[in-house]
């Protein structure tokens, strides 16, 4: 059995999209991996992409390690316990046709334990701003439910050709 299998993919059409959701995720894998390529219509130098599970907006925490090209910093995104963030993506003020990229790894997504999430994120556009993030996320929600749906939401809206690929990884 292949250990690394595509479950579902989304590519945003010409009308854009407020979010990208994977629902009805099968419980037959051990871990999940999502690869995201995104740009939004926010009129700014970047946008932030957030992650929630099962349509629930509580129980989240985040630690971020960021390199901006000249400095390195770390923060905890205090006050955003309603989601995991922030995955910095390219936005409307960035060089045309450039997209940010994120890789989200979720081990043991069906377990009844607290969920830990590891995220690598990059944003580059051959311009003034770029960033690299290593993010540790946690979802500690009552009952510790299995993850059955995943939603990515930016501040703006995803533009056409933004995409996300959900893979299941099996160690069975």
């Amino acid at each position: 059995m292949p250990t690394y299998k595509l479950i579902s993919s989304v590519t945003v059409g010409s009308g854009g999209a407020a979010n990208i959701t994977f629902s009805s995720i099968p419980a037959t894998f051990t871990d999940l991996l999502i690869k995201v390529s995104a740009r939004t219509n926010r009129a700014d130098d970047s946008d932030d992409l957030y992650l929630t599970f099962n349509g629930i907006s509580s129980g989240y925490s985040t630690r971020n390690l960021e390199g901006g090209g000249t400095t390195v910093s770390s923060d905890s995104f205090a006050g955003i316990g309603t989601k995991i963030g922030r995955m910095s993506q390219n936005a409307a003020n960035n060089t045309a046709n450039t997209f940010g990229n994120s890789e989200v790894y979720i081990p043991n997504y069906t377990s009844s334990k607290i969920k830990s999430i590891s995220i690598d994120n990059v944003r580059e556009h051959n311009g003034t701003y770029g960033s690299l993030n290593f993010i540790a996320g946690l979802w500690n929600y009552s009952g510790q439910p299995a993850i059955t749906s995943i939603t990515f939401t930016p501040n703006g809206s995803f533009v056409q050709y933004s995409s996300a690929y959900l893979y299941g990884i099996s160690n069975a």
Partner: protein
Amino acid sequence: MAVTYEKIQTTTLSTSQASITFSSIPSTYTDLVLVGSAKSLISGTDSIGIAVNGIGSGIYSRTYLEGSGSAASSGRQTLQIRIVSDYITGTYGTADFGVYTWNFMDYANTTTKKTVLFRGSNTQVSGGWNSSAMVYLVDTTAAITSLTIGTMNGPNLDTGTSFTLYGIKGA
């Protein structure tokens, strides 16, 4: 379609124990990926230590970059006795299992010393969080045939700790 990402072996602890060993690793892959979800039985923070081919002498060095949630830092350590991860969670508070990944590059060759890349996301409810990235050098030209995974400070890995070793085929 050729399968390029294959599970070699997986271990999930049903009882706590001192270490997990993946031995007789085949040389038929290009790279290895070790994915762990781990917790220590120590009452505090700990680190994972990996011995390559059973070697526990100072052949390991590392350069790390880590963020605690309030500060970022980087440093180097040489002559270490294990491939040492960043912090993992101990048993205090409502501790959880972090996410740890090691990439062992060109592990089967017998002419070059081995480079290892690490990403750690230690997410715990009560303090001691961090997100980290590291690069290691294992000062041996021998092919990697076994990995022994344990804790650096605690007596045991906790029940529920799991490690899976994958092989990546480049051809």
